[in-house]
C-alpha cells in the first residue's frame, strides 16, 4: 500500500498526518452510518437476520444443519472435481495447441528447397493453410462466451448421439475455452523469449521439436506461471456455470436448498464466501509466485527474460473472463 501511495503523494508531514487522521475518522463514521442505513436497516426490516433463515447454515443444533452442509459438501466436491479435470485438460490441450501453432508458424517460413518444385509449393500451401486454420479456431473460441461453449456442448453432443454425464459436458465446455486461452498465454510466453534461446538451441543441434520441448516451453511455463494460476481462478469461477446444464455443483445445490428453505440471501452469502475464500487464496498464491520469480531472476545475475507486455493483457483478460 505504502508503495503505491508514494507515487502520488509526498511522505506526509505533521499537518498532512493530522488531516489524514481527521478525514479517516470522518470517513469511518460516514461509512458506518451509510452501512447502517443502506444495508443493515433494509435487511433488518425484511427480517433477513432472523435465526429462522440463518439457522440451518450457521447453527449446529438446527435440525437441518447437518443435512444442508452435507449437500453443500457434495456441491463443493463436484465443483472441485470439475475444476480439477478442466484445468488439467486445458493445460494439456493448451500446451499442445501452443506448440502446434509455434511449429506451424516456423513451417510457414520454410521454403522446402531441395524438393521438387510442385511438392515444395504444395507443402508451403499446406502449412500456410493449417496455420491459418488454427489461428481462426483460436480466435473463434477465444471470442465465444464460456456460457455458450458449455451450452453448445451440452446441446450439441446429444444431437450427434453422443451423450455423457453432465460433468463431462461441463469439463469439455470449459476446456474448449480455457485451453485456447492457455495456448495463447504460453505462445506469447514463448515468443517473448529472447531470440538467442532458440538460436543457441539450433546451434547445438537440437531439432525444432526438441527446441520447443526442452528450451522454450519450460521457460514459457516459468514466466507465465502467475498468469496460469490466474487462469485457474477463472476456471474455478466458471464451474459455477454448471447450473445451466444442471450439473450438481455448489450453486445448483444452493438453489435446491433455497427451494426448500426459502432463504436466498443467506445461502448465496455462504456460497459467495466459500468461492471468495478459495479464489482469494489462489490469487495470493499467484502474487507470491510472481514475487518469488522476480526475486529469483535478480539473484541469478543473468539478464532476466522480461515477461512481454502481452502478459499483462492476457492476465487482465483471464481474470476478467467470467
Amino acid at each position, binding site marked *: 500500500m505504502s508503495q*503505491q501511495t*508514494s*507515487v*502520488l*503523494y*509526498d511522505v*506526509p508531514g505533521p499537518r498532512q498526518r493530522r488531516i*489524514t487522521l481527521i*478525514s*479517516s475518522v470522518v*470517513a*469511518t463514521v460516514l*461509512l458506518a452510518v451509510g452501512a447502517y442505513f443502506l444495508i443493515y436497516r*433494509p*435487511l433488518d426490516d*425484511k427480517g*433477513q437476520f432472523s435465526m429462522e433463515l440463518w439457522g440451518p447454515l450457521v447453527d449446529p443444533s438446527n435440525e437441518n444443519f447437518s443435512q444442508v452442509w452435507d449437500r453443500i459438501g457434495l456441491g463443493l466436491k463436484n465443483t472441485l472435481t470439475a475444476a480439477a479435470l478442466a484445468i488439467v485438460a486445458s493445460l494439456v490441450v493448451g500446451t499442445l495447441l501452443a506448440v502446434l501453432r509455434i511449429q506451424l508458424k516456423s513451417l510457414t517460413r520454410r521454403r522446402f528447397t531441395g524438393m521438387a518444385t510442385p511438392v515444395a509449393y504444395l507443402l508451403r500451401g499446406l502449412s500456410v493453410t493449417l496455420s491459418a486454420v488454427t489461428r481462426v479456431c483460436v*480466435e*473463434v473460441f477465444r*471470442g*465465444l*462466451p*464460456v*456460457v*455458450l461453449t458449455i*451450452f*453448445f456442448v451440452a*446441446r*450439441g453432443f446429444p*444431437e450427434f448421439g453422443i451423450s455423457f454425464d453432465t460433468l463431462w459436458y461441463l469439463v469439455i465446455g470449459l476446456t474448449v475455452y480455457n485451453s485456447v486461452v492457455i495456448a495463447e498465454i504460453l505462445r506469447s510466453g514463448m515468443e517473448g523469449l529472447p531470440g538467442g534461446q532458440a538460436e543457441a538451441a539450433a546451434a547445438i543441434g537440437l531439432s525444432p521439436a526438441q527446441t520447443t520441448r526442452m528450451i522454450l516451453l519450460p521457460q514459457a511455463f516459468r514466466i507465465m506461471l502467475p498468469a496460469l494460476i490466474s487462469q485457474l*481462478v477463472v476456471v474455478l*469461477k*466458471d464451474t*459455477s*456455470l454448471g*447450473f*445451466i446444464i444442471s450439473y450438481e455443483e455448489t*450453486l445448483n445445490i*444452493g*438453489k435446491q436448498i*433455497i427451494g426448500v428453505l426459502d432463504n*436466498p*440471501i443467506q445461502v*448465496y452469502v455462504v*456460497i*459467495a464466501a466459500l*468461492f*471468495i475464500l478459495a*479464489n*482469494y487464496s489462489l*490469487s495470493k498464491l499467484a502474487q507470491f509466485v510472481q514475487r518469488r520469480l522476480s526475486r529469483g531472476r535478480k539473484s541469478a545475475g543473468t539478464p532476466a527474460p522480461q515477461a512481454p*507486455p502481452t502478459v*499483462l*493483457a492476457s492476465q*487482465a*483478460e483471464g*481474470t*476478467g*473472463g*467470467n
Partner: protein
Amino acid sequence: MSVLIDKFDVFAGGFWLTLQICVLAAIGALILGAVVAVLRISPVPPLRAVGTAYVNVFRNMPLTVVMFFAAFGLPALGSNADFLRVPVLDSLFSRLGTDLPYFRFALIALVLYTAAFVCEALRSGVNAVPPGQAEAARSLGLTFGQNLRHVVLPQSWKASVVPLGSVIIAMIKNSALIGFFGVVGDLSQTADQLTSAEGYAFIPVAIGISIGYLIMTVPLGALLDRLEKRQAVAR
C-alpha cells in the same frame, strides 16, 4: 441453414438487446470502477480498505453468484431496481423501463462485477507511472490536481487502455449469462428458444449465435492487438 434467413430478425433482435446491455453495463462499470479506483488510491486508510474489499469480493466471486444475488436477493428485499428507470435512458434502451425487472437486475450484476476489474485496470495504469514523474511534478510546484491532470493521468491512461479493453471484451462475453437469468430475447436466450421451444436444428442456430458474439468480440480484440503493438513500438 434456412433458419438463419427465416429467423434473421430474431437473431438481429437478440444481437441488439445484447449490444444494449453491453453498452449500458460498460458505461456503468467504467464510472463505478473509476470511483472504486479513486477510493483504492486515496490517502485515507478507511476508504482504501473499502475499495480493496470491494475489489477482492467481486473479483473472486463468480459472476453467476452476483447474478443470483441480483435476481433472487433483490426481490427478497422487495426491490424492483426501479431507480434504473431513468426517464431519458429508458426511452432509448426500451428494456430499462419495462415492468419485468430482469434486465435491470442483470445490468446491476454486470456493472457490479465488471467494476472490480475496471478498477484494477485503472489502478495498474496509475501504478505503472514511474514514481519519478510525480515526484518531478511535485518539485516543480504543481498542485495535486495539476499533477494528476498533466502528468500522471495522461501516462497512466496509456498503460490502462489495453487492459480496460480486455475487461470490456470479457464483459461482452459474460453478458451471455443474462439469458439464463430471465432476460428474454438476448442472443444466448435466443439459442435456447429456437432450438428447444421452436425445434430448429441445433448447428445453424449455434453458428448464428456464435457469429453474433464474434461480431462484437473479434474486432475489438483485433483493435486492442493493434493498439498494443503500437504502444510496444512507442516504448
